[in-house]
């Protein structure tokens, strides 16, 4: 097959070009060489279909579809469970969670990545689900606010309890996002000082201005988590 020989050619070129001058120029040289090979193929076989990989491994990826303009199956791993949804490619991860998976804990505030109410963890890091296409989250671990409490006993995460103890919310609309960012702040070891916490949490707005209590809740959860 054209593609398998092409692949072999590419990797051998990458190997040959690695670290030629004591500094990696893999991409700077490797792709140049690749393109020479690619140019030889141009015109006969290359078409838009090549935008997806046609290796057997990759073609099993349900999202690797060309012309995914209509609804298509998207497999998401949400809070440890596999969920299969039929989605328009425009669907954001936030809408997939709220409207399709029935998980309404993540909130839609601005829908433009400015408020942080939609924060979830994607592959272990806080991201804005309103600016993430659901199809791009396929295959990655997604944790929403619903996934924080203990699955078996429903016991709240230390930070959820600390938010209650410190009155860290009034209306509560931003709270799921605040807690998802706060948990990540603790996990990343970025809760050393109040300034560090405020910087890490600056993407989560609270119109009730519960900021001092949010900071206190994170500091409290930190000391409790360190003790256990």
């Amino acid at each position: 097959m054209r593609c398998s020989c092409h692949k072999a050619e590419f990797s051998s070129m990458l190997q040959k070009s690695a670290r030629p001058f004591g500094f990696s120029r893999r991409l700077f040289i490797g792709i140049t060489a690749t393109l020479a090979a690619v140019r030889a193929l141009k015109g006969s076989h290359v078409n838009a279909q090549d935008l997806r990989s046609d290796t057997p491994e990759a073609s099993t990826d349900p999202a690797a579809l060309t012309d995914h303009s209509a609804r298509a199956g998207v497999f998401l791993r949400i809070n440890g469970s596999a969920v299969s949804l039929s989605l328009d490619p425009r669907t954001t991860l936030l809408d997939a969670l709220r409207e399709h998976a029935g998980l309404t804990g993540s909130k839609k505030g601005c829908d433009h990545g400015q408020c942080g109410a939609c924060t979830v963890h994607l592959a272990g890091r806080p991201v804005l689900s309103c600016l993430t296409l659901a199809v791009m989250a396929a295959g990655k671990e997604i944790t929403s606010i619903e996934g924080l409490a203990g699955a078996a006993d429903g016991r709240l995460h230390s930070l959820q309890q600390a938010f209650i103890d410190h009155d860290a919310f009034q209306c509560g609309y931003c709270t799921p996002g605040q807690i998802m960012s706060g948990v990540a702040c603790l996990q990343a070891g970025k809760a050393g000082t109040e300034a560090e916490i405020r910087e890490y949490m600056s993407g989560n707005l609270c119109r009730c201005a519960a900021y001092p209590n949010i900071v206190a809740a994170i500091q409290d959860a930190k000391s409790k988590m360190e003790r256990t």
Partner: protein
Amino acid sequence: MRPFSYQRLLHPRDVAALQHVSSRDAYIAGGTTLLDLMKLDVMRPERVIDLDALSQNPDFGGIEVADSGLYLGALVRMADAADHEHIRGNYPVISQALNLAASQQIRNMASLGGNVLQRTRCPYFRDTSWHACNKRTPGSGCAAIGGFNRMHAVLGTSDNCIATYPGDFAQALVALDADVFIIGPHGSRTIKFAQLHTQPADEPEIETTLGPGELIGAFRIPAGPWTRRSAYVKVRDRESYEFAMASAAVALHLDGDVVNEARIALGGVATVPWRAREAETRLAGKQLDEAVALDAAAAAFADARPYEHNGFKVQLGKATLVRSLLQVKVMEI
């Protein structure tokens, strides 16, 4: 959001297919700019090509350090480059520019390549209820000139557009004379970062020298005696999660108090990542003190052209540069 077809570029060998990519298509990596502007109906791609899988490839997703410099794949996430131990210690201007940008969530999502290509925050560009925007609709005029232009540029403007380049990382790259590696359907090429962005002039809708289908593969930052003594100072309306009103990326090679070589770029005040070469020239060979720094800052803004609401940016930009120079001078390295 308008309908689009979604495709993935899974392997670098598939770059051949980029020859079918046109200006009606858009690449997506982090999505933090593109999806925002698609929801606003400012960007209307018919096809969105997802590059995320390439971040698994070290050429696109890797960071590599060597004595000769730094290699940053274009799909490295902002947070990963910002928190990289070697970059923090040896290229502080890069680490600081990245960490002072956006929010933690956005830094976790946004790629370095996408970051330098982020679009302006000009409210008249972002709001389609304003008819006049030469960037959005060529030939329609500029609502910011004569409108509310407090956040707009004073350097590199034209009578057709005064939109500010919004990024931070790009200032570090232009100051450090980075190379950009570009791949595309008709081959690959390397350019200086300073050649990537174009001033608005008569065609504000053209923002970069990237051709149809071309995408940024990586950045290479050459090491120099100035890279460790460097910093990014950003002044803004809020302490965090806000775009720069004025910023300065400064790197100095000092011999005692005397400037051997200075590298300076300005943000928040210009239409493109702005290398302040006049200021660099003023500093060369001088003993750096406040008077010399003020002189360099005056040179940097000599051609500034303020508009109705942004005249303060000239003074603010100068003060930001002076502060950065004096701060970098006394850095312990």
